């Protein structure tokens, strides 16, 4: 079980127990719902994006496993104050991180910061979708996609 600690780090348990920004967002101007058909998990991401394309506020709701909840929670913490373009680069880097690809290959390299606690996911291909559901939903919300996104 000890090797599991690489996946389930204490930070993940913490965010799973007490997810940050876990509510609807009053005044949100972007919103999307994400769905993982593998496990039936659903989550919603809400954004307040300024005219200058800055993410002023972000929140989420829904239910999922510890990996997906923690990933969504940390995502909301990371995104506040970032531009839409920076968010896109972050996602690209994060996706590389959890699928075991070279993160530094992406230029300009964005600082993943706390998102690094999800590095362990790379050893669990079946769980990559859990870690990326919130990010896929974010992408849809940024495009203001009316449709529900799915990880499949």
């Amino acid at each position, binding site marked *: *079980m000890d090797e599991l600690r690489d996946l389930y780090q204490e930070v993940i*348990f913490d965010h799973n127990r007490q997810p940050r920004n876990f509510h609807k967002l009053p005044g949100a101007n972007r919103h999307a719902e994400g769905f993982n058909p593998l*496990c*039936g998990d659903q989550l919603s991401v809400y954004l307040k994006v300024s005219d200058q394309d800055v993410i002023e506020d972000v929140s989420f709701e829904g239910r999922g496993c510890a990996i997906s909840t923690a990933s969504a929670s940390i995502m909301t913490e990371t995104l506040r104050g970032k531009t839409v373009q920076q968010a896109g680069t972050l996602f690209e880097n994060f996706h590389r991180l959890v699928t075991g690809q070279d993160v530094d290959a992406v230029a300009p390299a964005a600082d993943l910061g706390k998102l690094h606690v999800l590095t362990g996911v790379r050893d669990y291909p079946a769980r990559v979708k859990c870690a990326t559901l919130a990010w896929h939903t974010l992408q849809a919300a940024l495009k203001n996609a009316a449709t529900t996104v799915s990880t499949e």
Partner: protein
Amino acid sequence: MAPKSQAARSRETKSRAIQIAPKIAPGDNSTAAYDLAKIRADFPILSQKVYGHPLVYLDNGASAQKPKPVIDAMSEAYETYYSNVHRGVHWTSQRSTEAFEGGRAKVARFLNAASDNEIVFTRGATEAINLVAHSWGRKNLKAGDEVILSHMEHHSNIVPWQMVAEEKGARIRVAPVNDRGELIFEEYLKLLGPRTRLVGVGHVSNALGTINPVREMIEAAHGKGIPVLVDGAQAAPHMTLDMQALDCDFYVFSSHKLYGPTGTGVLYGKESLLEAMPPWHGGGEMIKYVTFEKTLYNDLPAKFEAGTPHIAGGIGLGAAIDYVTQIGLEAIGAHEHDLLAYATQRAAEISGLRIIGTARAKSGILSFDLGRIHPHDIGTMLDHQGIAIRTGHHCAMPVMQHYGVPATARASFALYNTRTDVDALMVGIRKVIEVFR
């Protein structure tokens, strides 16, 4: 096999209800008649280690492991006599045809069908239901007609009917379940009406383990002239089946859950019904004569088997049927029932564990949740202890909605599982709870 009396069948159904003995000792539930060590030795994969732990395989409801006789029968076919079937004049084709059709004959005996012509090979149980929905359904469903399904159906017995219903303007009516996960029989009876054209029901619920009273359901439907399709994917590996005693109209199951290969399944249909149904897929094998103006279709079962079939699949399924028949479906059912009773008792000792599906008549499936710990996290953590279970909605989302959960963790038992496997599962679950505390 002589058809059993209704009373005998009814007793069988009742006897499957779980009786939890006050004390069941841990260890292996091997008896002189049921030699678990010998059975386990037949399954090469069971000696594998996963993350350094002996493999504890409890995902049999998704797919069962394969015994050596099945693997060998398929290898032997490919290594010594394989060829295309039915039309070749050469030795390999004759030999392959005999072996493949021999598989069909074994299925007919396994189900106590009246004739081999009632056995149609498909890719799986899902395709078998789609065949009935598209062939029988398109011909017989009209606007305003109704198809009754239970609330605990697998998606494969929901979606094909929705597709045809949408096309025809028919509608799906749902027979509800109670909190134990049992079909509410009186509500089912109320749904049977003048517009009902078909009843579709799972013999055993894959998500809950509930054994549905299919005999009584068929009897009630037949009282109103309504045919019944039974999805036996979760029943065929665990109990004796008798189509003539059951008086079932359509019955489907898949080979891979019955210790046979994937890619092969069975549609049983009463000959008169299959005769009256139009073909579904067109192609070779399903024809007698083809011109550009008109095609004369083949007789049963070839009419529904367009294209080259899964030849080794039919042969492997035949070997799997030989294997389970040799051990005996009654003995297998009793063994798994003992495991379920033991697991249910052990699970009840774990605080915070809720069993989802507590039907009085239940097959070897233990679906559960641990409150705020998501089933996917349970699955990953058990996997690291070498324990394979299923986590998710089990392709039965409506019944998950009934219980208000997105997913459950599910352990499902097979003929080779032991009480030691159950013990490992319980130790594993306690560790998960500990880590998440």
